[in-house]
């Protein structure tokens, strides 16, 4: 095992908040014994290490210290105490447009960023075309960046960050920008990075993305590492904690899926490039007829018609059931179950044997992903709601398989 790519030891960052600008100066005076600032501990004694090729997700609420940690690793700001080491070229995708000079043209910004990364003019020249092609900003490259739309800025930022071929790529909430096709390119690029054994540090509010992309995750809470472990474990713990916090039922999984693309998800562009869900229906598998009123224990089928892009992509589909108050009761994915979808036009049927939901109205959302389950091509619910009508008097959300037993025992059993 080679050396860790990122090592962080007892890292702390404390900001000082002063009541007014004079206090900063006044505090330095020898006769002022009492500190005049309020310390704000953005990070407290952070310890972790990231091995080569690992993809680490960082999750936590706003203000938990995620951005501060990323800023320290990229060398923008410095820790108050502790130490860190980054082995390899590091490149960061922080906020949109950060690191760009708004008055410079796209071209000038590319060169400026290359220079900041330590590239010579020659190397920057060599990469320029690649960056331009990736960003697809050919018509705007000589316009000042301040005239760019946020999507264009993001494209340029992403293109520059990946073109420098860093060993460590730091991504702060960048997915889900730009148009559909560009998002797809970004996801491909990120995957390509993973495949080439590069190290990634991924900061996101989307637990779903963290789970799909990262192997391990760090949960930061109030500047401390609350948990660092396998990504699925950490995200589950986090989701549970967060739902307690919000005093709302746990919806871990799909609740923070951003909307797919930048078009109306119910009405995607009718072109040949985007795979999409053409229609969906709830049917009675016995008769094959549409029906949406079922009783627990019956078998339900959900049929979804999909039209793939002109050159068929490998797709993954997930179908869930969401109660009217927003609880996701289940969501199953072809990706997790190892079903491949790669034809041009096809119908997928999800059969739910022995429906165990109890009374309620359920919305059935459908997601259409790329094969890795990251890029969302399309999402829409089934037009009808699934209505379950209970014939027994059981209460609750679902019908748990159960049985009763009665024994006669004298005296007390439970001590």
């Amino acid at each position: 095992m080679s050396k860790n790519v990122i090592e962080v030891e007892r890292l702390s960052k404390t900001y000082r908040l002063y009541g007014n600008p004079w206090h900063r100066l006044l505090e330095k005076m020898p006769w002022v014994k009492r500190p005049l600032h309020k310390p704000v501990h953005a990070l407290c004694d952070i310890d972790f290490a990231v091995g080569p090729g690992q993809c680490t997700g960082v999750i936590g609420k706003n203000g938990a210290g995620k951005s501060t940690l990323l800023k320290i690793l990229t060398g923008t700001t410095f820790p108050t105490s502790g130490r860190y080491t980054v082995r390899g070229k590091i490149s960061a995708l922080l906020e949109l447009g950060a690191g760009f000079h708004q008055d410079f043209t796209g071209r000038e910004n590319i060169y400026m960023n290359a220079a900041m990364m330590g590239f010579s003019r020659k190397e920057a020249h060599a990469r320029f075309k690649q960056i331009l092609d990736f960003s697809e900003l050919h018509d705007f490259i000589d316009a000042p960046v301040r005239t760019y739309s946020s999507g264009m800025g993001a494209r340029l930022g992403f293109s520059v960050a990946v073109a420098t071929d860093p060993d460590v790529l730091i991504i702060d909430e960048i997915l889900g920008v730009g148009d559909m096709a560009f998002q797809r390119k970004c996801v491909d690029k990120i995957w390509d990075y993973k495949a080439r054994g590069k190290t990634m540090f991924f900061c996101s509010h989307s637990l779903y993305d963290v789970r799909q992309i990262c192997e391990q995750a760090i949960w930061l809470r109030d500047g401390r590492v609350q948990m660092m472990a396998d990504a699925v474990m950490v995200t589950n713990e986090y989701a549970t904690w967060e739902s307690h916090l919000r005093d709302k039922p746990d919806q871990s999984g799909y609740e923070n899926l951003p909307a797919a693309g930048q078009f109306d998800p119910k009405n995607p562009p009718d072109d040949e490039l985007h795979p999409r869900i053409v229609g969906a229906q709830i049917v009675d598998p016995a008769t094959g007829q549409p029906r949406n009123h079922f009783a627990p224990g019956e078998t339900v089928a959900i049929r979804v018609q999909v039209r793939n892009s002109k050159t068929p992509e490998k797709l993954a589909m997930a179908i869930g059931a969401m109660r009217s108050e927003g609880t996701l009761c289940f969501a199953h994915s072809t990706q997790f179950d190892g079903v491949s979808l790669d034809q041009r036009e096809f119908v997928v049927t999800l059969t739910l044997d022995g429906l165990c939901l109890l009374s309620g109205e359920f919305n059935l959302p459908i997601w259409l992903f790329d094969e890795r389950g990251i890029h969302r091509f399309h999402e829409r619910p089934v037009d009808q709601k699934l209505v379950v009508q209970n014939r027994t008097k059981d209460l609750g959300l679902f019908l748990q398989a159960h049985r009763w037993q009665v024994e006669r025992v004298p005296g007390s059993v439970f001590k």
Partner: protein
Amino acid sequence: MTSGSAPFEQSYSAETARHTVLASLVPVVGYPLEIWRHRYLVANFFRRDLLGRFRGSALGLFWVLVHPIFMFAVYYLVFGYLFGNQKVGTAPTPEYALYLFSGVIAFTALIEGTSRSCTCVIDNGNLVKKVAFPSQLLPVPLILVSLTVYVVGALVCLGVGLAYGVLQPGWSLLLLPVVLLIQFVMTLGIGLFLANTHVFSRDTSQLWGIFSAAWMFLTPVFWYPHALEGAVADVIKSLFAWNPAYPLLQAHRLVLGAQPVPYTKDVDGALVERLSDFGNLGDHLLHASLWALAFLFVGYAVFMSRRHKYADLV
């Protein structure tokens, strides 16, 4: 503060990092190299700044010329006609006019370079805060712009001077780049110092505005050094010689080929004709460069020792 043992390895420890001014004094040797390495970056900022200032204005780059000429006209009117450099009621001589002009453009470049450097870290908050931008480069293009404006003015000055036969530039004109370099270094040193101070206290730019106006009047921009003779005690006169801008300004004038001007002096009741010279060019260059280096060392060391805090304060 950042050490690299393997290529691209960076390590930082808050316990061993030394942010003292003295520790930051050593890397000043590498500063010119740093500027050279990022010359395209600097060139970009330079071009943007120069073009950006005049974008959208009808006269465009012509303003570079108009500003010093107009200021010169005002000073000439006020100091030439209204105040005592000349006998009352007589027109000011072309010698004085060009003396004034060369002083005004050189000093304006110094003030403009420093005062614009003062706010450069704050103005580029987007870069300083979000990415590891080499912020010590920020004043460089601003100062280069101010020197460019100066060079345009100096060409005008030379043209007029030659036409009137007032300036007689010789081989010394070849030393103009040296004088420009000295001014660059001095402005950069002061600029870095101010930029650092301004991050911590936003009052700096205001204070500097007041200070620089006073500085301008205390430097022989409008008046000849011989005006001090008899007017103030010798101690004070020698204090004027400790003005860092003094040797710089006189060097500018000598390089442009300024000639000694005659003046009359009241010596024991008798009027004596004297020649006011501008001193020795070599001495001025030496003094100015010593000042410039001192400013650069202090400015750079202070800037670099505090740089790690900028991202949190901007």
